[in-house]
């Protein structure tokens, strides 16, 4: 079954076809929600909300168009609504084991610190900047798709990405200075 066929069947009320779409996109939807909110339970709730809204409104979806940006747009809206409802976006990413522990302990520590610093820098971005960064690099969407998902024009997306890069560079630079001082 192709994505287009699945959408067409969903528009006729076929739940199995919707299951196909859920299983295809649940990873990126949940992961994006998690990266935006930093909270597993809320991310799961938002992912469910996004899929339920997609099912409910799928008859408005224009067949033949890419489904992912449309779905991610619903998710982004749910995240924004969630932020206004609960102000959760500043919640730090939950702790856990970082991958790469099997490396050389010294290298692994350095690599882990670098990743941790970048991750903290990402978490410190404003929601608007984090949103475009997560959609662009985690969800692996093009600038055009990010624009569609975020409800922005492409120029605004590019501008936000540029500013996000600047902010990340600045934060990484600050972090290295702090780390250097500690060493």
């Amino acid at each position, binding site marked *: 079954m192709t994505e287009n066929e699945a959408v067409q069947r969903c528009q006729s009320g076929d739940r199995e076809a919707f299951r196909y779409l859920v299983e295809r996109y649940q990873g990126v939807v949940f992961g994006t929600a998690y990266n935006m909110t930093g909270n597993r339970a809320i991310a799961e709730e938002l992912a469910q909300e996004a899929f339920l809204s997609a099912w409910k409104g799928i*008859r408005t979806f224009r067949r033949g168009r890419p489904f992912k940006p449309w779905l991610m747009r619903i998710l982004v809206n749910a995240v924004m609504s969630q932020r206004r409802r609960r102000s959760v976006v500043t919640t730090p990413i939950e702790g856990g084991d970082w991958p790469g522990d099997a490396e050389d302990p010294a290298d692994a520590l350095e690599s882990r610190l670098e990743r941790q610093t970048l991750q903290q820098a990402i978490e410190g971005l404003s929601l608007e900047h984090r949103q475009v960064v997560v959609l662009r690099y985690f969800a692996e969407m093009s600038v055009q798709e990010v624009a569609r998902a975020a409800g922005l024009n492409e120029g605004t997306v590019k501008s936000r990405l540029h500013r996000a890069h600047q902010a990340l560079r600045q934060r990484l630079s600050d972090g290295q200075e702090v780390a250097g001082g500690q060493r």
Partner: protein
Amino acid sequence: MSTNEPNDREMERLLEEHFASGATNVPPTPDLWGTLESRLGAQDPKPLWAVLRDIGTPVDGFRFAPALAATAAVAVVAVAGGSVWFAVGSGGGGGGVPASQNPDTLFLPASPAPTIGEPTPMPEAMMEDSAGPIENQGAAGAPGAPGIPGVAGVDDGQYFAEPTPTPEAMMERAAPTPAPPAPPTPTPAAAQSRAAGPTATPAPWALVPGPAAEGSPGLFVPGGPADAPPGFPGFPGLPELPPEPGATTFQEYERQPLTEASEDNVSTFSLDTDRTSFQLALNWARAGYQVNPASVRAEEWVNAFDYGYASRDSGFGVTSDLIAHPLESGRYMLRVGLKAPETVIDGPLNVTLVLDASGSMREGNRVAIARAAAEAIRRSLDEDDRISVVHFTTDVLERLTVTNASPDDRAVVDSIASLAPHDSTNVQAGLDLGVQLADAMRRQRPEALNYVILMSDGVANVDSTDPFAILEATSAPDGANPLRLVTVGVGIANYNDYLLEQLAQNGNGWYRYLFDEEQARATFQRDNWLALSSPVADQARAQVTWNTDAVKAWRIVGYENRVTSAESFTQDRKEFAEIYSGAATTVFYELELHDDFREHRGLGRLEVRWVDPKRGQPVRQTSSVWFGSEVGPQQEDPLLWFGAAVALTADRYSALGGSGESYNTGRDLRTLQGLVDNLQNELGHLAAFRDFVYVLETLVRDVPFVPPDDSGYSR
């Protein structure tokens, strides 16, 4: 920008590697389907705009030619010997049938933006409360008192039912279809006196069945046009679409723009206590109709709810609060609330009931509602009061006319009980006689307050249909004891909101909408009637002068037809509001503030002016516009956040009638729905809150929400 590109590319690489490595430590994806499967409900039907959009693309194996979109955009259908017009929005604010082509439609130029004058100086001294006959020193910036939330003004009887279809609504949907009224023909003078005219259906935002299609949900009446394509809406296989009742007339007003305070720092508007626009929307939603954006006046939605303001013994209790904007980061919303004193005037009344006995009143239970309201008013009067009754149809029904009688007079009781529909509507004739009778009573009893109460669906199809022409022709002399023209609207289809609203606004009165008999009785039961018939401020208006050191830009939410020039503020005009005992007016502003706004003494100065009904003397009151604190959690003042949600819902939805994009509106409405959902614990026990939630749900349902097509491909 170009010098940063290498750095951007490096950062892109870092981020791609970062996310690809799993360094964000996203937990394993849960089995969403296992949870979702049991929660999948019914799907929304395909809206009209999507149907039209997909014409030209394969739909269920049938490919429509693009030219059919044009065919669908305007279809004229002959049904049973009459003409029914269908206009279908074609997107982008265009579409619809040109006014010149539609016999039931009147389009006039849109309202121009208000004149922006030079900024008014804001010296430090102006920040102090200044003197007038009534001062407000103590109440300036006082926070809202707890009060009794959710009870709207004095006539709170409108909130006592769950949002289920009313008898009126159900009967209207099933009622036989009357012949469409004659097209409204405004006078040139009226057209000039108002830059914008009434927007009778169809509007560009939605499908508009003609009058003969009332009761036939869907785009086409059964049988459909002979040349309609198979599978097109109205035929089997496609979902039904939200309908709209025929022959409704609403005024389209241009929303106020965001104004730089450096260019114009004065906001002047008439106060308002009407809540008809929200009641109309509620009744339409209950009946299954899509709410017409042109019917939405945000101030009447906001003022439909009670925010528990504290009142004073004299003058207005003033409350101001600031919150972060629920929709736009970096902006704020300011609420200013004005509460009139609760002073019942214990004096005689002269009441003239002008009852619509025309054929359009036959629909639904309009006559029963009008009869119940008239009888409730009669019962609420004292023996010292006097009452006259006029029935009008093509002309006045002289046999049912009662003049200057005691409320308990048998002739009055019989006349009200005899209200029944007859022929066409001649509001002018009814009002002419009503005003003559009221004026005669006023001359006999100059100490009495004088009310002329028009009960009608507003469809005036004989003589004038223009409210200003009616008012001009109705010789209502002004003076210290004016005639107060109250309008009471009933019905859904064949309803002229514009006529009734403007008659009241320009007739020293107020406008109410009734949707069933119980509500009619509750609205005019004695306690409410005593308050409604006790004016405490005539020609009331307010002016906010912004402190440009604190406020960068401002925008008033709603009040489009009540905003007036700064110069008119000092003039006593009868189009300004008549405020009765205990009535509250709330206004919301969207603000952009300077970063250091907290360091200034306030956001501006509020001045209210009105005429004292007893003395006929002008009065003024001033106070600072202050913010007690920047409210954070919604739970601290849920009614404040609720009011903001109501204001923004109405404001954003009303934009659909003009240049508003359905995508932005859909997004904003869903965000506001989230805000309102979060207030359930605090406000869910209030019927008024539940009614608003219901209306908001229907708006969200009916507003499309998909990203704009910016792919670059042609359609």
